[in-house]
């Protein structure tokens, strides 16, 4: 082998070695790299006991209720399978909305309610002007109405 082929082999092997070891480290870290747990994981008791952790999911439609002090908010985080009620006292981020992504940090009490210290909104990857979002909503509503009127028909699914 020429010296330059040797150097190439050396670099290729070094990169492969480092990639493998990083891969093994990340694999060992596994779920610890995740930012939050899902409500299903909370139900399956896969969360740290008695410690503060994060739950991520969607804010359940129609679940947001403000208390009279104007600061305390009750809402439910769902992954469409299980859901966890959350109480939070503080200012919510602008993107916090029903049906949108949310990450809450806090501890879940014995009553199954999370007392959140921090609530963050999670944005999705869709960017569209308000008119387009409006049209999409109307189309979905129309489809829902159609499928309700004709339950035998296969409902048309609207993909975003």
């Amino acid at each position, binding site marked *: 082998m020429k010296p*330059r082929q040797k*150097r*190439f082999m050396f*670099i290729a092997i*070094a*990169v492969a070695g*480092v*990639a493998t070891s*990083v891969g093994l480290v*990340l694999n060992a870290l596994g779920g610890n*790299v*995740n*930012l*939050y747990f*899902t409500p299903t994981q909370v139900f399956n008791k896969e969360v740290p006991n008695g410690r503060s952790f994060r739950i*991520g999911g969607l804010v359940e439609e129609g679940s947001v209720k403000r208390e009279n002090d104007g600061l305390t908010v009750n809402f439910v985080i769902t992954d469409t399978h299980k859901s966890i009620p959350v109480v939070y006292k503080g*200012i*919510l*981020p*602008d*993107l*916090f*909305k029903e049906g*949108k992504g949310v*990450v809450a940090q806090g501890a879940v009490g014995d009553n199954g309610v999370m007392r959140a210290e*921090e*609530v*963050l*909104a*999670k*944005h*999705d*990857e*869709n*960017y*569209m*002007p*308000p*008119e*387009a*979002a*409006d049209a999409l909503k109307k189309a979905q509503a129309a489809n829902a109405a159609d499928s309700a009127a004709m339950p035998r028909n296969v409902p048309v699914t609207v993909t*975003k």
Partner: protein
Amino acid sequence: MAINWFKYAAPTTFYGLAGKMIPWFAFSAAILFAIGLYIGFFVAPSDAQQGEFYRIMFIHVPASILSMFLYLIMAGYAALGLIFNTRLSAMMATAIAPTGALFALISLWTGALWGKPMWGAWWMWDARLTSELILLFLYLGFIALHASIDDPRRADRAAALLAIVGSVNVPIIYFSVKWWNTLHQGSTIKFSGTTMHVAMQQALFTMLAACWLYAIAVVLARVRSIILERERNAAWVTQLPGIADFAGGEK
């Protein structure tokens, strides 16, 4: 006629070529920045959820893409320099590092500015943000390591190894939003296409092209300075018009 592919691998010839190319790249970068910013601010509609805040992505996304691509290009040049012992490759790697670091910093900074009003937090230790921060540290480490070794050829080799090993981080940044759940949203522009509004796409891609052209122009200008500095004792440098006068006046 056989083309000599290695003609411009020599600093002597590349110095002149780079000098001729810089104005073209710089000029088209300036024009595309103007067009991209115009579309971004005045043509692209506001977003249904974020209102006007989303417009920061027209600099955030290109800066993030550039920071990752420039790292791979830098590591590629570093590897070329190690394998073929070519002087210019190592100089190119050194010239790319500060621009890459700048883009990584812009990416983190604009992301924080957007994160506070949108997420409710400047910073979150999720996989995407943390791996991008590591990328910035890799750039800074490359620059620092190169600067800390006096012999330039040894500095090239040491820094090249760091650059090559660090390139493992780039796919981690890219796939972090897929592999783990993060606060950072997934990719809007995928290889399979995008669902973004057309005017938003135009602004984004124009800004991306502008950032590329800017990066190329700046890297070429920087590599010219590095060539001059490193080859200062070579006969061709002492005979360059401006430098010949300077050296002559000093003696």
